[in-house]
């Protein structure tokens, strides 16, 4: 075990994979000479050299597609998308090309590429640089989408992603880059497997990325006994673990940093409801962000993503009443 910041864990995972397999290459905007706008590639160019580690022009379509093509030829490219929004100019290469190449080659080609992208609110980057956007990749058979919640999962998920024979997107909560944690570098996560951050009996809380930390604090604040499921893989998500937990607790809350309408949490709620309808003790529900662009102002942005206080309030509600609670903006009369 080594203490590292999340961004150092990312560097370590990339370096370990690059050492283990010379087919792993890495490129993106300012990732080589400048070692990454978020310092997520410190020392990578120096150790692996300019053939395997490259700065790209500002051409997300071009270089993301290049990763698809290089992967089809046997390399394992890792690309960095600085802010997830930038895939808005390149989604075609991910969803319509990369994810479908195994299918369109009748199984003769695979696309072992990894896209790393920073996501999320909380740092004052404004509404074009603060979303999580998991839903852009939803409903895309062929893709896998992961999100770490701490240094250990940042390390273990990235290694798993690079080793995986399919296109994998790792969405990294930007707000965690500077956070520290202990990392066991022998651990490589199994893609598609959730991890239990806490175990308990009264309620199941499912979360992803930084919301796992928020939920953890909320569980403590609420003083309840809860299973806290860190999904880790959002596509395809771990139905087995979630269903087993809710079967046990009879209650489900999903905490997500995505707008109320159309976030991934509804998938969890809908599946659990369909499968475990008669075991449910109260209404499963989601705690989300409101349906608004991410505001820049600090006071507003602090209220944008679920807070541990608000999650605690809603956990308590779930344990005492069968109906779902109101989101804070309704409860406080700020909006409908």
């Amino acid at each position, binding site marked *: 075990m080594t203490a590292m910041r999340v961004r150092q864990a990312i560097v370590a995972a990339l370096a370990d994979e690059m050492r283990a397999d010379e087919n792993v*290459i890495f490129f993106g905007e300012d990732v080589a000479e400048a070692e990454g706008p978020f310092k997520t590639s410190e020392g990578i160019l120096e150790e692996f050299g300019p*053939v*395997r580690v*490259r700065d*790209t*022009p500002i*051409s997300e*379509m*071009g*270089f*993301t*597609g*290049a*990763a*698809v*093509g*290089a*992967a*089809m*030829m*046997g*390399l394992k*490219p890792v690309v960095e998308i600085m802010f997830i929004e930038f895939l808005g*100019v390149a989604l*075609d*290469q991910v969803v*319509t*090309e990369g994810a*479908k*190449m*195994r*299918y*369109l*080659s*009748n*199984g*003769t*080609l*695979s696309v072992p590429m990894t896209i790393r992208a920073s996501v999320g609110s909380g740092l004052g980057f404004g509404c074009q640089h603060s979303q999580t956007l998991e839903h852009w990749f939803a409903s895309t*058979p*062929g893709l*896998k989408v992961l999100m770490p919640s701490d240094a250990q999962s940042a390390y*273990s998920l990235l290694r*798993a992603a690079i*080793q*995986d*024979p*399919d296109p994998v997107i790792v969405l990294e909560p930007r707000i965690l880059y500077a956070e520290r944690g202990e990392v066991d570098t*022998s*651990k*490589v*996560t*199994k*893609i*598609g*497997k959730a991890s239990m951050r806490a175990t308990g009996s009264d309620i199941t809380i499912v979360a992803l990325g930084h919301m796992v930390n928020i939920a953890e604090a909320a569980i403590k604040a609420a003083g309840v006994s809860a299973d806290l499921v860190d999904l880790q893989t959002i596509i*395809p998500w771990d139905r087995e673990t979630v269903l087993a937990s809710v079967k046990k607790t009879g209650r489900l809350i999903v905490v997500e940093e995505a707008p109320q309408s159309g976030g991934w949490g509804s998938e969890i709620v809908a599946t659990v409801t369909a499968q475990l309808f008669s075991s449910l003790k109260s209404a499963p529900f989601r705690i989300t962000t409101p349906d608004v662009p991410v505001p820049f102002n600090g006071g507003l942005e602090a209220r944008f993503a679920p807070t541990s206080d608000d999650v605690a309030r809603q956990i308590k509600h779930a344990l005492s009443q069968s109906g779902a609670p109101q989101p804070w903006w309704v409860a406080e009369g700020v909006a409908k």
Partner: protein
Amino acid sequence: MTTSLERRNALYGNDLACYERMVEIREFEKITNALFAAGSIRGTTHLAVGQEALALGMATTLKPTDVIAGTYRSHALALAFGLTPHSVLGEIMGKATGCCGGVGGSMHMCDTSVGVLPTSAIIGGGMPIAAGAALAFQVQKSKNISVALFGDGATNIGAFHESLNLAAIWKLPIVFICDNNVYGEYSRINTTTPIEDLHIRAESYAMPHMAIDGMDIHAVRKGIGEAVDRARSGGGPTLVEAKTYRFSGHSRADQALYRPEGELEKWQKRDPLLVTEQDLIARKLITQDQIDQMKSTMEADLGALAKKVESDPEPELSAMFSNIWTPAKAGK
């Protein structure tokens, strides 16, 4: 059974075989068109009539280990690069015997044994992918090269610009081949593009470029050959614009009534089959009689094939669930 690779290898150094393949493509497209009209083909299909010389020129200049990323208009490409008429028609008809097992369709040709990467039905979609394949060859220190094949209309999409710039700055072993067949769907190129010689767009990337006569296999080989040599020897990318003509409509039932009068007729004099026939006859490699014979044999053979393919098995229901993901790899 002949493999794709054998069919490909049969072409090298054999101009007669190349001509025969051009005839195959032409007759194949006639049958495709007829099957479509008869309702035996679903969806859409984009005929490659007029692309024969370009396809054969590329097939015989590239090695089978090189790769090419083409478009939805790739029947000529597929047949020239070696795919059997059976596997191409099988795919177009959605049969289990198709090159993609029948789940892809007319727009999606693929055969990695001869370097045909899955063709993309998204304009420009294959270009960054081809650049990526070239990147892989560069990193792997392989002598293989990559080709992106696309239409005139594709030169207006962002992926074109980004791919060329990326290939130039990284000096990738790639040749960009624009099949300028004058039309993009129902639009004449001059209505969507303010320049006539599309290849000059390479100047934006300090990239060598040229126009070639895409109707003459020798001109194609010469031009592309130069670009291929440059790529293979580490000299980086080239943009080649092949001047061709789309003899068919864009797809399916399009009659191409929007063509200016006389244009088709003018280009018909440069029909790649005609150009090759004149060349082969002049070189005394074939006679008009043999040509006629070859065409009618081909027509009959492909007609018989089409009958056979019609009764080929459909894919199993399970095919719908295959080749999507590998199971996730176990971790520790």
